[in-house]
């Protein structure tokens, strides 16, 4: 269980996290979502006591992180930036951390095998690829077999195999009753892993809900129609609040109404339909819609603004 209460963090004049309050419960994977610079990494650093909050609290299982007698078994963290000395081998990095808590060498080799770094464990981390560095970070997080896992963009740099692996791993860990909290700016990624969602923008809470509720609440449903009489159907559908677009000949995309209404209209006018289907708003759309006002670093080229 992670409790964030009125957490505010300012760096000079810049407010990175602004009066944030939410709880991350054990037993499910919770996704932490927000555009670049939203304050995800800052919040996570505050949880493990690396950054002191300007005001408010970040607690793990009712306590401040620094109060734990064995921090590594309470919280395992993968933080965004590389947190390893480039001149040290993966094995020695893990071993040094393990020794602080009297964790045996056996456990070190265990996590190395688990993340698939067996062959390069003796090599200097400086030569690691992004994905290998990420795997090492995951190994560090798992080292103490902790009750709470905090992972800042864990899929960053992983190959498709790795992405699938970590998805299953995290779900498995949550199913054991652990608290799993992972950040991403890729909504689609989180949707496949997380059950619960915390969305922030410009340091403020935008949503704290389940993935399902989030999608149905924010994504606008769109009805897709394929018809040889597309032009006439578009005319008969026209009305207040309804918009009709035609991405290609014979295809309509209707928003602001339901598939049933479209079907009835077509029947009433004796129009032939080849296809009628509801596209649930994609997660990315839902996310974009929610954070539209809270995006801080937006590219200015037109093509990129969809």
């Amino acid at each position, binding site marked *: 269980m992670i409790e964030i209460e009125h957490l505010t963090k300012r760096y000079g004049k810049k407010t990175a996290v602004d009066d944030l309050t939410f709880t991350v419960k054990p037993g499910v994977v919770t996704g932490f979502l927000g555009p670049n610079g939203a304050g995800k990494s800052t919040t996570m650093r505050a949880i493990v006591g690396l950054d002191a909050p300007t005001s408010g609290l970040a607690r793990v299982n009712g306590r401040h992180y*620094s109060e734990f007698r064995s921090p*590594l078994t309470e919280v395992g*963290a993968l933080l965004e930036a590389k947190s390893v000395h480039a001149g040290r081998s993966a094995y020695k990095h893990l071993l040094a951390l393990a020794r602080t808590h009297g964790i045996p060498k056996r456990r070190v080799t265990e996590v190395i095998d688990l993340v698939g770094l067996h062959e390069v464990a003796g090599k200097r981390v400086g030569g690691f690829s992004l994905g290998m560095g990420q795997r090492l970070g995951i190994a560090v997080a798992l080292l103490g077999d902790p009750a709470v896992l905090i992972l800042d963009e864990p899929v960053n740099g992983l190959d498709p195999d790795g992405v699938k692996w970590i998805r299953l791993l995290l779900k498995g860990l949550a199913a*054991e009753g652990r608290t799993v909290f992972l950040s991403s700016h890729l909504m689609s990624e989180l949707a496949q892993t997380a059950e619960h969602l915390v969305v922030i923008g410009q340091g403020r809470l935008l949503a704290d809900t389940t993935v399902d509720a989030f999608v149905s609440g924010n994504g606008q449903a769109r009805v897709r129609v394929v018809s040889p009489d597309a032009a006439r159907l578009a005319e008969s559908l026209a009305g207040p609040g309804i918009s009709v677009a035609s991405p290609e000949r014979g295809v309509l995309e209707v928003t602001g109404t339901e598939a049933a209404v479209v079907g009835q209209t077509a029947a009433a006018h004796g129009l032939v339909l080849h296809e009628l289907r509801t596209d649930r708003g994609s997660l990315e759309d839902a996310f974009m819609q929610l954070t539209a006002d809270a995006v801080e670093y937006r590219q200015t080229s037109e093509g990129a603004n969809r």
Partner: protein
Amino acid sequence: MTAAVMTDRPAAYTPPVHYKLSAAGLLRSEWTKLWSLRSTWIVLLCAVVFSAGLGALIASSVPSDQALGGAGAALDFSMAGIALASVFVAVLGILTVTGEYSTGSIRSTMSAAPKRVPVLWAKAAVYGAVVAVLFGVMVFLTFFMTQAIFSGTDLGGVSLADEGVLRALLGYAAMIVYLALLALGIGSILRNSAGSIGFYIGVIMILPQLATLLPWNWVAEVTPYAPGNVPNTLLLVDPTGANLSVGESWLWMGIWLVVTYGLAGVLLKRRDV
């Protein structure tokens, strides 16, 4: 009712109970960290080679028809390399801390030990002990080697049994440990490799020497108390007439370490990692 509610969720997970953060663990961790970097081996090897090599080189190049100015001068010649080695040792002391900041490994370190200050103690204890053992050996090794060179010539050597010699040799070892600890503390305060090394060489090593050239009297009065100068008395075979007595020398070394580590500890607690 309660039972039904409880089966709703997976059973609460209990983490392993036998893993505990401890002071001994932090010491072992710092030991592992120190020796798992190639730079440690290279820099300490340099320090060892310079201290012995330079001592031997200087000792064998002293013109043998010239009388040595007593035991004090004999020791100055033989220990010239130790003084140079102290620079290597100080730089490595700085890097054990600043290297963690520049690479980001400090975040791993401090998430494993979130009270932070014990990490500083562990680092200082491990590095101080390594330097003490290594240079405890090197000082005597260099001494016996150089005296062997001297005794083959007209110069004659000094003996450990000569008055003040043993104390001066231990003084060299103490100085190098003190400088190593001082440098490590500076690294912890400044966090930046280039800045800390620059500060150490500029302010600790060179500034007190330059200060003697300044025209004001008070500067000459305070320079013996500068952090880089306070161990000087310990190196003398005959400390009478030195600016600081042997006792004062120890006292001021203690004061500077307390000041440095006090500041380092407070800053470590207060700043974000």
